[in-house]
């Protein structure tokens, strides 16, 4: 029996076996290339962002699509803080954060955060809202749309400055906890507004609480409780206000084999894995607790490889992780901006070719 895309994604995301393995696009600024616009045009105009992602849907036909998230939209409302935070805004790449929002650890206790509910205080966030809303209008009947935001731990890391935040974990844990409390509160309020505007699926992109950077102990102390709070808060809000289910997925960059168990405890419905994690190991460790998304290699396969290589990589991913369901094919991280279209398309085509249940291999 053929499922709707929503049924397919929800089934796989929550650990079940759908009619076939679904795919999810993780395109980020590659979308600008697809639409032949500049990255700056995408971030400066929500309608151009939506056009770009709609073009991506038309080109690649994934079952689910992660909407755009931009450092300008995520960080642009914070202002300079005590450390003189600024954003550099290139035409063909993501913005760079220069400086720090919190110059000293104790500044976390005295500075205020932007109020997402105020359009005057948070114009960049409301551009993000417009993008989500228009994207849902544009393709929401044909694909599952995930709103995407930079992760709460990564946000605290960038607002404090990466080196300083890493040291805060060991030298100023109270301040680190306060920063996590602040970013969690802000992102949760943003999520509630997205829910009010129709969003029901959410992905957090977390480069920083990775085992490439912090220990499992620090992940458990400084990331996990806040991730749980965020995912629970969003789910409860959608349930209590609309009687509807809200689905979350957590992406953490890097080789996180050491914390697969904890990632599955973050109260998200699914986890998205970087290419450095062995999907066979992940499948065994996760054991159906949450859905798994991933993890086609971005540099050697999608950027530098061939469609044949990508097809083979996708088949291998399905062989390792899709048995019994609970698996969604996606890139291991954001598709590189200049990745050849034929390589990216090969990933989605291969998912349909090799992902019909019951699986042939």
């Amino acid at each position, binding site marked *: 029996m053929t499922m709707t895309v929503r049924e397919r994604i929800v089934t796989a995301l929550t650990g079940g076996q759908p009619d076939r393995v679904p795919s999810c696009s993780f395109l980020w*600024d590659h979308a600008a290339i697809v639409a032949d616009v500049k990255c700056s045009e995408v971030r400066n105009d929500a309608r151009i962002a939506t056009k770009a992602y709609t073009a991506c849907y038309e080109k690649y036909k994934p079952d689910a699509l992660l909407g755009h998230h931009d450092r300008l939209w995520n960080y642009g409302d914070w202002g300079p803080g005590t450390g003189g935070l600024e954003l*550099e805004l*290139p035409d063909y*790449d*993501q913005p*760079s*954060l*220069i400086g720090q929002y919190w110059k000293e650890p104790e500044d976390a206790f005295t500075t205020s955060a932007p109020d997402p509910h105020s359009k005057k205080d948070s114009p960049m966030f409301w551009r993000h809202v417009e993008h989500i809303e228009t994207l849902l209008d544009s393709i929401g009947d044909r694909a599952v749309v995930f709103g995407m935001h930079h992760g709460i731990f990564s946000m605290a890391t*960038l607002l404090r400055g*990466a*080196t300083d935040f*890493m*040291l805060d*974990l*060991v*030298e100023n844990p109270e301040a680190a906890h306060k920063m996590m409390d602040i970013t969690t509160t802000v992102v949760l309020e943003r999520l509630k507004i997205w829910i009010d505007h129709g969003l029901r699926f959410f992905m957090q992109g977390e*480069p920083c609480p990775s*085992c*490439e*950077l*912090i*220990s499992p102990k*620090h992940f458990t102390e400084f990331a996990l409780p806040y991730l749980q709070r965020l995912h629970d808060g969003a789910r409860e809000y959608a349930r209590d206000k609309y009687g509807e289910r809200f689905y979350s997925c957590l992406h953490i*960059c*890097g080789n996180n084999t*050491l914390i697969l168990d904890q990632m599955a405890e973050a109260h998200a419905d699914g986890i998205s894995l970087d290419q450095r994690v062995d999907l066979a190991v992940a499948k065994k460790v996760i054991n159906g607790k949450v859905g798994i998304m991933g993890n086609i290699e*971005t*540099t*050697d396969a999608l*950027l*530098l490889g061939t469609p044949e290589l990508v097809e083979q990589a996708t088949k291998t991913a399905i062989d390792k992780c899709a048995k019994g369901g609970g698996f969604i094919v996606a890139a291991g*991280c*954001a598709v*590189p*901006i*200049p*990745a050849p279209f034929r390589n990216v398309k090969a990933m989605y085509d291969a998912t349909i070719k090799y992902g019909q249940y019951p699986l042939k291999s």
Partner: protein
Amino acid sequence: MAGPLLVLGKVSHETPGHDGRVSPDEGERIPMDEAREQELLQALSDVCVEGNYKKGKELAEVAMNEGLDPIKAILDGLTMGMGRIGKLFERKEAFVPEMLLAAKVMDQAIEVIKPHLTAPMENKGTVVIGTVKGDIHDVGKRLVALMLRNLGFTVHDLGVNVAPDAFVNKAIEVEADFICMSALMTTTMQGMITNVEYFSQKGLRERLKIMVGGAPVTPQFAGMTGADGTAPDAFAAVNRAKELATQLFAERELAKAAVSA
């Protein structure tokens, strides 16, 4: 904790049977009692691994007051400690916060030791390092810079979002032996390819070694950039830098010999 505490406690109550001080008459360093020397070196190594920079400074002061050779204190004490924590990092038993803390211990202890150096330490190589234009990630790069500096390299860290010209200008100014570039995004790492071409146009390519690194930088991609080396993590990067430094200096010696022949 026991190691450094014991050392500090011992020193405050007795003057051990060493006299590692410089003889005022002869101007020569008198050899220190070997057991005491080893004790202090071990304590300096331990305090790096423990990440206690307050104790590290105190220990460095004690060591200098007792006449421990400052070069030994740095190379056989602190650097050994950094090596130990580097191995823990490799085995995923220590992570970035612990490495940064250890580096802080070493930095602060070296500030205490530096005035006691009678000659500058051997420069293992001059490095210009930075994260490429458009990229703001710096933790891994900073770790590499710290570890190289602590191993005796002279490191000029240009920070993040570094334009190609900035790499070139600094490399020329300081007569660099290395340019090391970091990127954490597949978008920004493309800049490494154009940067290396640019370094060639500016006549730098044959004069130094280039290393590239960062999470998305695979060996295949590193090969495409034309760089001389890459590594999967900070610890491996430092080891690779040491190998390339040996290679570079050997190449220069050969070139000199060829010119004089």
